[in-house]
């Protein structure tokens, strides 16, 4: 067997799998989104129906807020951890990155332990502070899984910055705050945009956290879920899935053009 044939054979298992479980199912998904009486105008209906439009706006809103908060927190923490060596630094780093592998459902439960009816804040204030089941609870849940992802990107980018630029700025009389604003942040900008796009895409598609927190939150993945399972409105569930998938995919393409390598959204 020639080397060429062998290399071609190496593609066969992937080819078969991807055709059967990715390409064909996605074609089916797009087809069924057009199978309602409305036909392809169903994509227009998403924007024309208040329920779907509101959920779309709410999802974009909470995802945007989470992205900004995660960027602010993770950049502050990431710069500190990347530039300082102290006892217990490894432990702090572990605490901040372990939630990477927590599924969204578990994070939802952790938010309930903080802000639920029987949560920590409720116990401390004898039942006055309950926020887990609101938009704020969802925001905290999304923040919980966004912080580790953004933090790792920021720290990796900080380590690649040229320290001589900071030394030059300091020797010219810039204080620590000025160095951060004028030298470090502009250097980190491409990575921050990329990390932000990943955080935004992950939040847009997150299902597990919203599912555990449940009540009254109409984010897009929850609407897709209820349309499919309760209303059996399969065409609309498919159309919303296709729209959501295209948006999150485009965001990650943007993220990659800024950093040069692909990142994963996933989880949530």
């Amino acid at each position, binding site marked *: 067997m020639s080397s060429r044939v*062998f290399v071609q054979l190496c593609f066969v298992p992937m080819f078969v799998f991807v055709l059967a479980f990715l390409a064909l*199912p996605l074609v*089916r998904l797009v087809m069924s989104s057009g199978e309602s009486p409305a036909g392809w105008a169903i994509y227009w209906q998403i924007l024309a129906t208040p329920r779907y439009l509101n959920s779309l706006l709410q999802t974009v809103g909470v995802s945007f807020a989470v992205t900004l908060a995660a960027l602010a927190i993770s950049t502050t923490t990431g710069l500190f951890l990347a530039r300082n060596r102290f006892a217990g630094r490894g432990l702090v780093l572990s605490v901040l990155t372990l939630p990477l592998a927590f599924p969204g459902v578990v994070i939802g439960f952790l938010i309930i332990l903080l802000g639920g009816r029987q949560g920590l804040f409720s116990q401390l204030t004898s039942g006055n502070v309950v926020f887990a089941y609101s938009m704020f609870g969802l925001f905290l849940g999304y923040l919980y899984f966004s912080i580790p992802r953004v933090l790792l990107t920021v720290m990796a980018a900080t380590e690649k910055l040229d320290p001589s630029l900071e030394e030059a700025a300091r020797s010219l009389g810039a204080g620590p*705050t000025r160095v*951060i604003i004028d030298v470090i942040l502009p250097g980190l900008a491409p990575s921050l945009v990329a990390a932000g796009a990943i955080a935004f895409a992950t939040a847009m598609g997150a299902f597990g956290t919203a599912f555990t927190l449940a009540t009254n939150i109409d984010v897009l993945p929850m609407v897709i879920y209820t349309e499919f399972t309760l209303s059996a409105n399969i065409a609309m569930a498919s159309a919303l899935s296709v729209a959501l998938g295209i948006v999150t995919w485009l965001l990650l393409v943007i993220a990659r053009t800024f950093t040069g390598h692909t990142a994963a959204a996933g989880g949530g």
Partner: protein
Amino acid sequence: MRISMARTLQIVVTILTCAFLLVPTLQSVLAGVTVNYFRGLSSGLTFQWISQVWDLYMDSIFLSIWLAITCLVCTLLIGVPAAYGLARRPGWASRVLEEFVSLPLAVPGLALALALLQLYGSMRGFRTSWTFILAGHVLYTLPFMIRSVLAVLSSMDLKTLEEGAASLGASPWQRFRDVVIPNAMPGILAGSLTVVTLSIGEFNLTWMLHTPYLKTLPVGLADSYASMRLEIASAYTLVFFIIIVPLLMAMQWASQRAQRIGK
């Protein structure tokens, strides 16, 4: 020494972030071993909740472990040859193929699950078997395996290594087995740990694909959060942490090692 404003802010934010991530985790661990969570630690410590979780959810824990192992075998069989193929044939076709296989990283699991359900939902035998969930897990984890192996393979001079082996008379298969796989080992290890960690924690796809008789660990977790008392839900979460945290730490170690080699 004067501590600057910026530095104080950094320290405060770091401490608050750690507290935000750590406090509920500790609460959940404590609640899982406390006799009565609402009366607090004074009610005493117990393993009764963990043993109840074992009785109630043992099947789901074993199903998740079984799925993770079979998922690993599938991603190895599909992903390692594919990564080798992609490394040997760089070009636009490979780029497009890699991009397409990586779609599950970007498209939410819920959307993928709807796609799978609509295509295969009517095939009852497949729909109700554990292999249906397996297909979803392989779909979601395969890009991680391919990328991890591809990163290591692209960083070394594969062509020269293989030409050396070929000049000594090694067949393509022998070269793949004796030259490519040993050299790709750090990537394969990192990819394997990632696949197992992600498979055990996967919820978004699995929730849609599972049947009442086939509950994985995270599906069981969602079930316990909705219907069990807080102590049992916490004890189950504790069991999950005990499985996932060592895996995650091993995964981070292996990925960093593979990255160092990849440079």
